[in-house]
């Protein structure tokens, strides 16, 4: 999979997660806070995945100094 496609796919998943986070935060900030937190964690991990994809793309592109 191309890096750009992988990033778009990851961000797409994040947007879906965001909708559920919004739902849990507004409808049950006490009762559903564990679900909200798990989604937040998944969201952060997906940001980490995007960073890794960019890093791999950068290293492979060969723009290396030194």
């Amino acid at each position: 999979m191309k890096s750009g496609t992988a990033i778009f796919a990851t961000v797409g998943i994040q947007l879906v997660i965001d909708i559920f986070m919004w739902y849990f935060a507004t409808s049950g900030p006490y009762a559903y806070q564990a679900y909200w937190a798990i989604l937040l964690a998944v969201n952060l991990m997906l940001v980490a995945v995007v960073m890794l994809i960019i890093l791999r793309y950068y290293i492979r592109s060969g723009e290396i100094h030194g």
Partner: protein
Amino acid sequence: MSEAKERNEYRLDRIWQEETPPPGSYTISMRSISRKELRIDYWTGAFLMAAFGYLAISGVLVFLYYQQGNPYGSSAAIINGVPLGSIILTSHLYMAYAMVALVYVHMFRNYFKGAYRGKWRWLQWITGVILFILVNMIAVLGYLLQETYIGISATHVMEILVQRSVVGRLSPGLSNWVIGLLVGNGSTASAFGHILALHVAAVGGLIGLLILVHFFLFEKSGPHGISSDSSDTVPAKNERNIPWFPANVLYTGFVSLLFIGVVIIFSAAFMQHLLPSYGVLQYGEVPFPDWYIMPVYKLMDLAGYGLSTGGVPLVTFFFLFLLIVPFIDKYSGSGALDRPMITGFGVFFLLALPIMAFWGYAQPGLTQTRILTMYMWWGITFVSFVTVYAMRFAKRDVDEI
């Protein structure tokens, strides 16, 4: 005189481009890294930075609701009455646990690797040991803040320790001043105001400043054990340098966010329940301190050698030893088995800390006899040093084959 025209730059990615400073400037570099440094064990410090950052942010959120005049009630209110409050407080607690655990991992990793030797590495090590002490201090202060029975008991123990320490015996006035610093005039509002100020501003601020110094010294020396003086004219693929931006930043962000995500999942799975408040200790309930305090807690039972303050000299020795280790390690080799005495001490601490903790959970607050204490200490000493020297001999035999 015509002035050089300077235009606004709106391409923010160019902010990372290298500038050539005028002669005489003092620069702090953000080092480029080689591909072989993109390994998680080189990034234990980044995990700690991530933990500190998360604790600062979640700490500010908790701080908005915490009341020093009503510590237990406001802690309970954060859990039960603030939207998402339970997850914020729980993740603040678990990230603090992670930070204490990681500070041990980071320190012992560099201890066994001998990363405290080198031009400025000794100073980096010393600031690291001070940070290690401060991280434990801030953790204990945070643990006192909830006004649980165990927290208040710990505060009382600390007061007694200060009074009975060498400082307290030589200068009662000074020990009273130290106690006053911790608990003010003793009223709830005063005591928790002091503890809060120490936790957030004094120790927290000091950690923030020292992290900067520690990080600057790291940037000055670079990662330990990476040879930059390769004799090959063309460096191997994984030894070529990649710039600090974006490679280092992206990798730091990657490991930090993964780590924060894992801690938040743990927090969601195991939400914190507040321990009973001070004064409502129930029959059959054994108060246990947090796990990172447990070794010291049990050490207090191990008077053993007629020391009225229990394990205080042993804890002091532990920290003093860590502070002077760069100056007493005269071995020429850099491997763990090339420095057997140093490694032996490291193994001793690695064994002693969990043994003390488990012993504390098994027999909390039970004063131990001198003979049992002797068996325990000499046993741990024997196992630590004999295994290290045996492995050293075994390695030598293998090397000779």
